[in-house]
Structure formats: structure tokens, C-alpha cells
């Protein structure tokens, strides 16, 4: 597969603050590539540069051979953007929104109307196309937001955290639609801070933290970095101190890492099942009540924890 997008040493600075610090990666034609990282990692800034909204402080990227700096108009014709926040006109209907945005992408006449019908069908809003967007639920608005990005059949679709703040049902529908679009041949750059989404959708994943791309590869390649380690997640009560428990657990021989997020202690161990009993004993000794336990095989969460020492939700 040839590269549709190539980013080379992209940097974006705001005064003394560096939002993106020299990231480089490629996206191959036909793949779903995810940028995974916590809030503030620089994912949205990266998409903003790649979609020509922001000019990079240094570095460059090409989409199908067109530079985002020198040929922004050519790039814009090739890409579709689904922004993180809803970018729609609430007082227009779904059809009117699609009509306006289609015209902005130089579509018109019968071709545009046909495309609008197709997209409405794709996002499941044909019946409610004549209702103003402000009357829609959050999930429906998200679907229209995605529909706008699909109207002109872009070669490369940027989706910036499209499932933030919506119900599980709508989230499921969006993830399925991303897979369906990819099946139809669309290349997708997807950003998320949900490990599960990146794991489910992506052919390859880039992990971002503090403006840097700290790991890149297929899921298998990335999880190899943490070896055969498993993850044991202990949820403690609101009145208990998870930090005290983490300190105690770190004294156990088999534990490689133990970190705290909110009321959760995440423990990296070769065998999660084997570590469970000693960890619970430590909790009992400290008088800390464990509410629930999760055990996970090697995954992207563990990779992030392994690389940064922090959980993805930090």
C-alpha cells in the first residue's frame, strides 16, 4: 500500500508552549490509523495542522503528494474533517446543513442532492432530515457532523474524537460506520483517548503524549513492548487512599508497575491472576476495601502505562 499522508517533523508552538513536538508518521491508503493519547496530548492540534487549519511552526506534511503548507486548497479537496466539537448550524435542518456544506465543497445541482440523500441514508436520518438540528439528540447531531465530512467522498477522512460525550448506542453506530466507510475504501485518521476504540478500529496506532509520538505500530507490535505483561486493575472505595495501596503493592516481587488514577490502582504483572491474592491481602492489611477487580491481557492501555508511567485517562 502506498502512503496517502506523510507527516515530517511537524511542530506547533504557541509562544513558549509546544503543543506538538516534531512528530512524523505515514498513513497508508485504505487503512484506519488512530492517534491515541490523553486529553492535551496534541492530537487535535495535529489534525488541525494536517487539515490546513493551522500552519505548522516547522515541518510539513503531504496528502497524496500535496503539501499542507504550499498547496492547502489541493489538500482540502482531498480531505474530509469531522471535528471534535459539533460544527453545524443549529437553526438549519439536517438537509439544509448538508446542502450548505456540500456547496462549500463545490458540489451543486442533482449531484449534490443525490449525495445528500445517500449521506442521510448512511447516517440514518432520512426521516428526520427536515427537522432543525437543534431539535436532535446529541447522538443524532454527531451523526450529522460526520455526514458533513463524508459529502464530497474524501480520499482521507479526519475524525477527531467523534464519540466524545455520547450514549453507548450512538457510539456503537459511529464505530460501525467508520468500519463500513473503511470497507468502502476510505482512509481514516481517527483520534481518541479511548483505548478500546483504537483497539477495535485501527490497523495501526500512534500513541501521543505531551505533543510527542511515543510509539507507533500495529497493536501486536505495540503490545510486544510490554512483553507478556498483564494488567490487574483494582477499584477502591471513595474514602480509601489508593496511593497507600499502590505503595504496598509495589513491594510485591511479581509487580512491575503500580499506578493510581482516581480510585483505581493499575498493576502491571506477568500473571494477573497470580497477583490478585497478594494484592487483596495488602489491601486488607491497610483496611482498604476493594470494590471490584479487572484483569486484562496485554493491551494499548498497558503500553501507555509502560511508556509514560501514567494511565491513559490521566
Amino acid at each position, binding site marked *: 500500500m502506498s502512503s496517502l499522508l506523510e507527516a515530517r517533523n511537524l511542530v506547533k508552538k504557541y509562544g513558549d508552549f509546544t503543543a506538538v513536538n516534531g512528530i512524523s508518521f505515514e498513513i497508508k491508503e485504505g487503512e484506519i490509523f488512530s492517534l491515541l493519547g490523553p486529553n492535551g496530548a496534541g492530537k487535535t492540534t495535529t489534525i*488541525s495542522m494536517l*487539515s*490546513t*487549519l*493551522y*500552519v505548522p511552526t516547522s515541518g510539513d506534511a503531504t496528502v497524496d503528494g500535496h503539501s499542507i503548507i504550499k498547496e492547502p*486548497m489541493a489538500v*482540502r*479537496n482531498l*480531505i474530509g*474533517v469531522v*471535528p471534535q*466539537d*459539533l*460544527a*453545524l*448550524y443549529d*437553526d*438549519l435542518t439536517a438537509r*439544509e446543513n448538508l446542502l*450548505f*456544506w456540500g*456547496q*462549500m*465543497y*463545490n458540489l451543486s445541482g442533482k449531484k449534490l442532492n443525490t449525495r445528500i440523500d445517500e449521506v442521510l441514508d448512511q447516517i440514518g436520518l432520512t426521516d428526520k432530515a427536515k427537522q*432543525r438540528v437543534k431539535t436532535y439528540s446529541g447522538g443524532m447531531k454527531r451523526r450529522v457532523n460526520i455526514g*458533513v465530512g463524508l459529502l464530497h467522498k474524501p480520499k482521507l477522512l479526519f475524525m477527531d474524537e467523534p464519540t466524545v460525550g455520547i450514549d453507548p448506542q450512538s457510539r456503537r453506530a459511529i464505530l460501525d460506520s467508520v468500519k463500513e466507510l473503511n470497507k468502502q475504501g476510505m482512509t481514516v485518521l481517527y483520534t481518541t483517548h479511548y483505548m478500546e476504540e483504537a483497539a477495535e478500529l485501527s490497523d495501526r496506532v500512534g500513541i501521543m503524549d505531551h505533543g510527542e509520538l511515543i510509539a507507533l505500530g500495529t497493536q501486536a507490535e505495540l503490545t510486544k513492548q510490554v512483553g507478556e505483561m498483564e494488567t490487574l486493575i483494582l477499584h477502591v472505595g471513595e474514602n480509601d487512599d489508593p496511593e497507600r495501596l499502590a505503595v504496598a503493592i509495589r513491594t510485591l516481587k511479581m509487580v512491575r508497575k503500580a499506578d493510581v488514577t482516581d480510585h483505581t490502582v493499575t498493576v502491571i504483572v506477568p500473571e494477573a491472576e497470580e497477583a490478585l491474592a497478594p494484592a487483596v491481602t495488602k489491601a486488607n492489611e491497610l483496611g482498604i476495601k476493594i470494590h471490584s477487580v479487572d484483569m486484562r491481557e496485554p493491551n494499548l492501555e498497558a503500553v501507555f502505562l509502560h511508556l509514560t508511567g501514567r494511565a491513559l485517562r490521566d
Partner: protein
Amino acid sequence: MRKLFLIGFKDLKLVFRDKAALTFMLLAPFLLTLAMGFVTGAYGSSGSSGISQINIILVNRDGGQLGQALVDLFQSADLTDLVAPALVSDPGTARAQIDAGEAAAAVIIPDGFTDNIIPTNNQAPSGEVLPIEIYKNPLAPVSAGVIQSIVEEFVSRVETGRVGGQVIVTQMLTAGLITPDQISAIASEMGQRQADAVVQAPAITLQAAQSGQAQKAFNPMAYMAPSMALMFLIFTVSNGGRSILLEQAGGTLPRLLVSPTNSAQVLIGKIFGVYLTGVVQMLILIVACSLLFGIQWGDPLGMLVLVLAAVFAATGWGMLITSLARTPGQVSSIGTAIMLTFAILGGSFIQTSIMPGWFQWLSRITPNAWGMTGFTILGLGGSLADLGITLLGLAVMGVVLFAFSILIFGRRSFAQK
């Protein structure tokens, strides 16, 4: 170009779906016009014009009865409420006072005005009425228009009397009722009676003779309706400018900027939307006021061009406010403050003609004042050709404000890149 129009018409559609914006754009100016009409007695039985105590300067260079009759007319009890005349002897001084904004107009009666109409000392008059000069204050077009109407009416009656007198004397001579040597005495006596008649019945004369035209000129609603429309036009343009920042915050502006649409198209499209909204608002108000209040706006072509120019200048202010503000809230606050300030400065609440000269000049920074001048000219019977200075003033204002706005937008980086 197509996208520019698409963005503009999309904004127009959005405004007309926003009930709050519609209330301010259309309902508020309409209701305020109505309320002001009641306050000023436009619907009362008195038929008060709402205009009073117009300062005028009289210069009587004529030594005869008719010149004095005109002075007496302005000093008569019937006009006490309407005009406040002051007499000076030198035309130059009078003009200087007008230039300084001390009065609405100077009425300069030329030397020999009476002698050219009424024969004296057995000398035949020339038969031509010498013109009375009305030196107007351009900043007080309504008041100056009132004075002009009074003088025109006076001259009209004098002319009527002169022609009527000539006919009567000629017929009396033909019938043998008088001899040629009696003509001078009789004509002189008739002239004196004519002068007395003009002074004795000025109010009746004004009302009767100017019925149609005067009603148009002094209908207070014809002053209030455009003044309220212009006041709320400033709201519309600042609200339109606010929409640029709202789109920026709401994500639709960045989305536009990642579509194959350049930032100049987006900005000009947004400005076009503001302009279009302002024009539609003004035209709706004008048509509504015509239908419901019976206001005559004058020459339709002149009115249309004036509206286009006034909205252009007002849009310039809207863009300047937007370019200086950081948030939509700031645009609202600054816009409201400017709307009220311009309304006062521009004569929406108080006639600028009664204010000091510096105030009247300051009012020229507002589209309201220029707009009011234009609407007044048209209301008094003027046409597009008479709007030259007004249109130029509005055009210059718009161009200067747009230039500043674009400069500031450029420095702020419109796309936040």
C-alpha cells in the same frame, strides 16, 4: 463569488430563524416608533409637529412694507411656538452665525424687495419678485425646511397679490373707474393691504396653502421611523459581526476554513451576510411604516440608494466593533453602547439642530445622522440628485471603517492560524 453569496444568504436565513434577533431588528424599532408617536402627539388631535423653537436669523435689507411684513410674520403670535427669530443687520454676520450652528437658517430679505412689487412715488415697479435668500444650516435640514416652507408661502402670497392687483387695476382703468394718475396710489394701498393680510393670517395661510406637502414634511412619524430604523440597524450590524465570533467559537468557522474556501471568501461572505441582513431589515421597516403609519418616504430610487449607502456605513461600524472585540459577549456590549450613543448623537431621540455646533459636527461620525439627513431631504421632496453629499459621507465612512477593520482582522489572524 458563488460561495460569497452562499455564505451571505445562509446568514440571512439564520437571522430570520432567530426570534430574539428578529425582535430587536424589526419589532423593537417598530414599537418604539409607535410609542414615540404617542409621546410626541403624532396621534393626538393637536397635530403637533414635534418641532419647536427653531432658531432663525432675520436680515431685513428692504425698507418697504413687504420686507417688514415677513419680519412681522416670523415674530407673530401664531409662530411663537415654532420659531425663535433674531434680527441682525448684516447678511455676512447672519451667515457666519449659521456656519457656527447657532440657528437653523438665516432669511435675508434683499434691498428693494417691496419696491420691485409695489409702485412708489409714481414709479412703476419692475414686476419681478426679488429672491429672498435662505441660508440653511446643513446640520438642521428639518428645521431649515420648515423655514423655507414659510418663506415660500409668503412669497407665493405676495406674488398672487401682485398679479391679482395688476389685473384689478387694469380692469378698473379699462372700465373708466379710475384715471391713470390714480393708479400709483391705488396700487400702493393694495400693496399695504396685501402686506397686512399676510401678517394677520399667517397660521391659516401656512396650513391652507401647504396642505399636501407640509403634511408630508412635518409628519413626526416620518422623522421617528427612519431614526428608529437607523438606531436598530446598528444592532443588526453588530449582531452580524458577533456571528463571526460565534461561528469561530462554535466550530463552523474553522470547518469553513478547512473546506476548499479561502479565508477572504469566508470573511467577505460573512460581511455580505451582515450587509444583506441590514438592507432587508431597513426595507421591511420602510414598507411596514408606509403601510401602517402612512409615511411617505419620497423618491423610491433615492430611498433605495440611501438605504444601501447607510447600511454600508453601518456595516463598517459593525466590522470595526467585531475586529476590536475578543468574544461575542464583548461585541454585544460594545454594540449596544454604540447603538445608544449613535442614536443620541445621530438625532434619534433629540434633534441635533437644537444642540451646540460641536455636537452637530460630532454627529457626522454616525450613519444615523447622515441617514436622517438623507431621509429628510427625500421626505421634503428631494430626489436622488439631492443626496450627493449624504451618499458621499456614508460611502467615505464605510470605506474608512472597512479599511481599519480589515487591517485589524489581518493582525489578529482571522483564521487563528
